[in-house]
């Protein structure tokens, strides 16, 4: 067993051998999650549509105001969909090992497969939500896909690395402290409010002095800026590219490394 963690090459090889497992665990969950519903897989499109509908209702109809209107709705959705991608990876990732305890205690495979399969599942959901974005933002605000949309690919890759890192980290923590799962909904909620999802970055000036640096340091802000450049053609600052890349690579690598380091001790806590 010691060889699993000590040899990175061996681990990668074993990971590659088990790549189908990650995919089919994710596909299996996707099929299973809507197996009992009448609309089945259509929910993967319906869920983000309903979400968009709710925000449209709140910010377009109830509080139209200055920030209302289709422009704002597009801004909102281009933030909320990526953010939900992260939330999914976070909450799913945290439970990925504990909820598969039977699998983990019975079978030998690189455990990182579990957070990876969560990432795959969430990515499919995210892809569906991107379709919904263009279906809504295109006709309403004129944000159709264009050349700038190619940016979506690097944005997604960096974002996925970031999500996997956090998911894997939380998965490890949750094995040893089950309390993690209870805290997450609140943490993600706060994170949503401190990220430029509902509010626009220029409003950061209105924030109290002590809060501004924290808001500016939020890696989610940089990632969202990438997405908005891809989805709305908005301005992309160089500093944001650097910050997004650095955090994605750093968090991704660190989270995965920390997860793998604790792998061998996990079974006994399940």
């Amino acid at each position, binding site marked *: *067993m010691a060889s699993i963690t000590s040899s990175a090459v061996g681990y990668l090889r074993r990971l590659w*051998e*088990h790549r*189908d*497992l990650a995919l*089919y*665990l994710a596909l*299996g*969950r996707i*099929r*299973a*999650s809507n*197996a*009992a519903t009448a609309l089945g897989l259509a929910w993967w499109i319906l869920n983000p549509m309903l979400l968009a509908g709710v925000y449209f209702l709140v910010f377009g109809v109830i509080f139209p105001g200055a920030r209302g209107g289709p422009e704002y709705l597009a801004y909102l959705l281009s933030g909320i969909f990526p953010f939900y991608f992260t939330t999914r990876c976070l*909450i*799913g990732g945290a*439970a*990925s090992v*504990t*909820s598969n*305890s*039977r*699998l*983990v*205690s*019975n*079978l*030998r*495979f690189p455990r990182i497969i579990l957070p990876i399969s*969560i990432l795959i599942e969430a990515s499919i959901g995210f892809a569906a939500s991107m379709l919904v974005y263009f279906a809504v933002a295109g006709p309403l605000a004129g944000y159709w896909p264009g050349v700038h949309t190619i940016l979506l690919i690097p944005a997604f890759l960096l974002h996925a690395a970031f999500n996997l890192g956090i998911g894997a980290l939380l998965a490890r923590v*949750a094995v040893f402290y*089950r309390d993690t*799962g*209870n805290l*997450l*909904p609140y943490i993600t909620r706060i994170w949503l409010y401190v990220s430029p999802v509902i509010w626009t970055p220029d409003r950061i000036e209105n924030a109290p002095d002590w809060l501004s640096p924290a808001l500016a340091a939020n890696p989610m802000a940089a990632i969202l800026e990438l997405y908005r450049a891809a989805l709305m053609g908005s301005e992309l600052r160089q500093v944001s590219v650097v910050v997004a890349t650095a955090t994605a690579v750093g968090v991704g690598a660190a989270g995965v490394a920390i997860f793998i380091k604790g792998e*061998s*001790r996990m*079974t*006994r806590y399940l």
Partner: protein
Amino acid sequence: MTGRRPAVRVEDVGVRFRPYVSRKPGLPRRKLPHRSRVEVVALDGVSFEVMKGEAFGVIGPNGAGKSTLLKVMAGTLEPDSGKVTRYGRLSPLLTLGAGFNAALSGRQNILLGGLANGLSKKEIEAKFTQIIEFSDLGDAIDRPMGTYSSGMFARLAFSVAVNLQPEILLLDEVMAVGDAVFRRKSMSAMRSLVERSGTIIVVSHQLKTISDLCQRALWIDSGTVKMVGAASTVVQAYREDQAAREDSKRLEADKRERAKRGRPRRDQQSDRGNVLIVAAEPTAAGAVYGTAMAGLSGEGSAYYPLLLPKRRNQLDSLLSYAPYERLLVAAESGNYTSLGIDTTKFHKSILVHRDPRDVLVEQLMREAERLPDSALSAGLTERLSGAGPSMVELMELAGLDPDITDFLAAMDQMTSLADTGRFEEIRIEDLFGTDLFALAGLLDVDLSGTAPAWSPPSGTWRHWFTAGDVDHFAPKLGGHISRLGYDEDWAVGSEPALVVPLNAPDLPGGDYTADHTADTLEHARHGSAAAMTELAHSLVASGGDVDMAEGRAWAYRAAIQGTGEAMFVLSNCFMTGAGGPPDRDRALFWLKEAARAEHGPAIEALKAHNAATKRPAPPTPAWRPPVPMEDEDEFDDDDLPNRS
């Protein structure tokens, strides 16, 4: 088995878990459970080998460590110590269908199960038809597995496991799957796997399956290997052991039943109460001793046998809230010392120390058993029939230390234990063969009508020592023996005076304040219920934690002597949590007992209690603030929010 190569080698493997536990297991929780970690030893120094081309069974009672062992072999659980080496590809489907998803169809699950076992998609597709045919599920294969019966589920899971053609197949409790036809089919599939020089390691409670299928078996209990060998032999030994346990349990149940029916009045028996027997001797003799003593406890109940050191935590929890009144420790003093039981909690406590000569005999026998054709074995047989070489000569033959230095060290410890005065009696006892019944009598335990499953061998070892042996050992042991008043009987054939009463036991050892006169304490120690009650009153009222605990103990001592007032004090202690954890049930129990003993205040209190519980609920006010639900359940680790 010669010439075969190993498939799995387990070397000195140890596994310890540290689960969260409630500090007071077994009692209903009135407040938030206190969570702490307690170490559980699941495996301890386990070593064995499983060969290629062998079906190997693992048996043992629940909680023996079987599944943990399988997980360690599978490599999903890393042992704390020791090493596991695997030679060959493993199909560790320990729990059948571990990778299955009930919402998916059988077909999809075959893929999932195979992938989880490390096969590629292509390899699984090649075996698809074979697996489906073997499972005999027909069209059901395309239905979600959630609609399967448990038999169908197990059939598919087993089919996946066995058809993946692993080199080593690990199975946990799966032999009961399917109907008779399927069972036969799975048996023959497993046999042919073994014939192809594959290996099967199977955990099961179905002993017949083990002896039918397996060539060899391992019997594991409390995390240690009891026996490895031919499957039929091991299964037979295990069966006998189970039967013996069953007997002693029934005996205990009988006793309890009898006690319930014709319960003698408490006040007529001053020394009744539960006995805690700590057979802290990790030897066969200790276990036999504990077994024989259990179920003999008259009205109370006995707890046995607590073997060192892994049960230490159990002992703690027993001591913390179980009302054991009498303590009997059968241990070598070194072991006792590491137990560190606070004898002041007990009304009567006795330490039984193994006679060093007993240990000698046992060591010799063990050596002779190990070397069946040796001069030692022949000599010992002769000796046991009263002739042949002396014990000292036999020890030399066996390569044992004829100067018995380790016994002398144990005796040193025992002597110093005697000096602490923590026990009322220390006895040197032949745990190997003598009179368990006489010993039980010491604690006023009535043994009549009980028939222990074990009876001592005829004749006692004392007759085996020659005059020369006595001359050899006596001067060495002399210092200790005469110190403990044991010098008369180190002679061949004479009956030893076993009891070594110690003077002035200092019981209990609390540090009392000036509130109590020395007289009261003295009287209480000599058994005066009135004095005990007086002490209980003032100690409980004093409010200090230590004092209250002492007070509760005194109240208990007096209560079991039938003193109504003490019962009432005790009831209050349990109600308010003075001097220990509160316990409403026991509070009510003692309140009723006190009322039955016609203690005035108790009768009043009981009446008030009854009136309060029978009174109809007060009329509901128009509006009440919402009351949070009282959640008595311990936090459930599995109860995590589901991924959505």
